């Protein structure tokens, strides 16, 4: 089974979910619906960052546990999706940082380890060209990799990315442009 993602930002769904979550009687049902609504998109962005399914699964579960624990603190200043996405992004970056500290000594070691996972069909089952692209993406620094994945694979707009990452649209455009130029260089395509 391979993941297929449709990116539609469901503002109306947000309202419905928040209504269900606000009432004690429907809170559990609302939460289950929330997980079903967002799980694939959240999993996708996390998986691309950590590569291993087991790690992605742990992070995604932690993300939704945090969502449940902090529902009362959600102020609706951002959309539900932006809020959950932000938690997922932070958890993914935190995971990579903790791996660097606990297991590896540098980002380069983490990158090499992740590149090895791409060669393992348990973790990645694309063809040689796709594997080549994934390995090139892994050469990008974690935050730039995140920006690239959000734009290229998840089709998020710069405004949505800005709301999630708290970075200006201009800086994101520059970061994405730079990521693409680096990839063209790594992959030798012009």
């Amino acid at each position, binding site marked *: *089974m*391979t*993941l*297929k*993602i449709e990116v539609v930002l469901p503002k109306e769904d947000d309202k419905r979910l928040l209504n269900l979550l606000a009432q004690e009687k429907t809170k*559990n049902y609302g*939460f*289950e619906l929330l*997980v*079903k609504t967002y*799980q*694939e998109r959240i*999993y*996708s962005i996390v*998986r*691309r960052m950590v*590569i291993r*399914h087991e790690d992605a699964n742990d992070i*995604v*579960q932690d993300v*939704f*546990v945090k969502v*449940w624990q902090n529902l009362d603190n959600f102020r609706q200043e951002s959309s539900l999706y932006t809020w959950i996405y932000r938690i997922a992004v932070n958890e993914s970056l935190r995971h990579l940082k903790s791996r660097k500290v606990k297991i590896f000594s540098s*980002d380069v070691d983490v990158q090499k380890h992740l590149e090895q996972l791409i060669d393992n069909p*348990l*973790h*990645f*089952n*694309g*063809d040689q*060209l*796709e594997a*080549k*692209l*994934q390995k090139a993406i892994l050469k*990008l*620094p*974690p*935050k*730039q990799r995140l*920006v690239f994945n959000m734009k*290229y*694979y998840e089709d998020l707009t710069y405004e949505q990315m800005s709301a999630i990452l708290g*970075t*200006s649209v*201009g*800086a994101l*455009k*520059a*970061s*994405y*442009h*730079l990521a*693409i*130029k*680096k990839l*063209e*260089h790594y*992959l030798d*395509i012009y």
Partner: protein
Amino acid sequence: MKTKKEIDREISEKRLESRFGKKNSFPVPEGYFADLPQNIIQKIKSEQTFTLSFDHSPRTQRRWLIPAITIAVAAFIGAFFLFKPLTTQVNSIDKQVVSKGDIQNDASDYYYISHILYNLPYDHLLNAINEEDDTYLDSVIYSRSLIPDGTLKEEEVIDYLYYHMSIYDITQF
């Protein structure tokens, strides 16, 4: 209407897409998403049960807590009265020294940082959009906007990146 920059970026993206595609080739175990909501709910329940089981533990298991808390509170109060005069004195001296020093340092730091940012060459701006800290560019742009005759605007930075960036620059990051 699309700007030149947007068209340029789209061309690069299309080139990448036509060669490598956008397929998601990360395998997911069969039925994973069907089970995930229940797995998450189970995890939440087990964490809640853990919390509840501690809260509702039998009185016999918590008997040690009362004397322990009593001793801790008594020790804290004793230490507070014993060291209070000395601590207050030290704090008041520290505050005087720190406040004067901080004001001077803040002013000179601000001047120094502003000066550096204002005179930062374009080459350094390339390094600004860096791996670990992409907020650095924001801070550069923000700081320059605070300077009345600062001419560099965000758009100019982006323009520069688009039209002056070489592969050599990129590989130096």
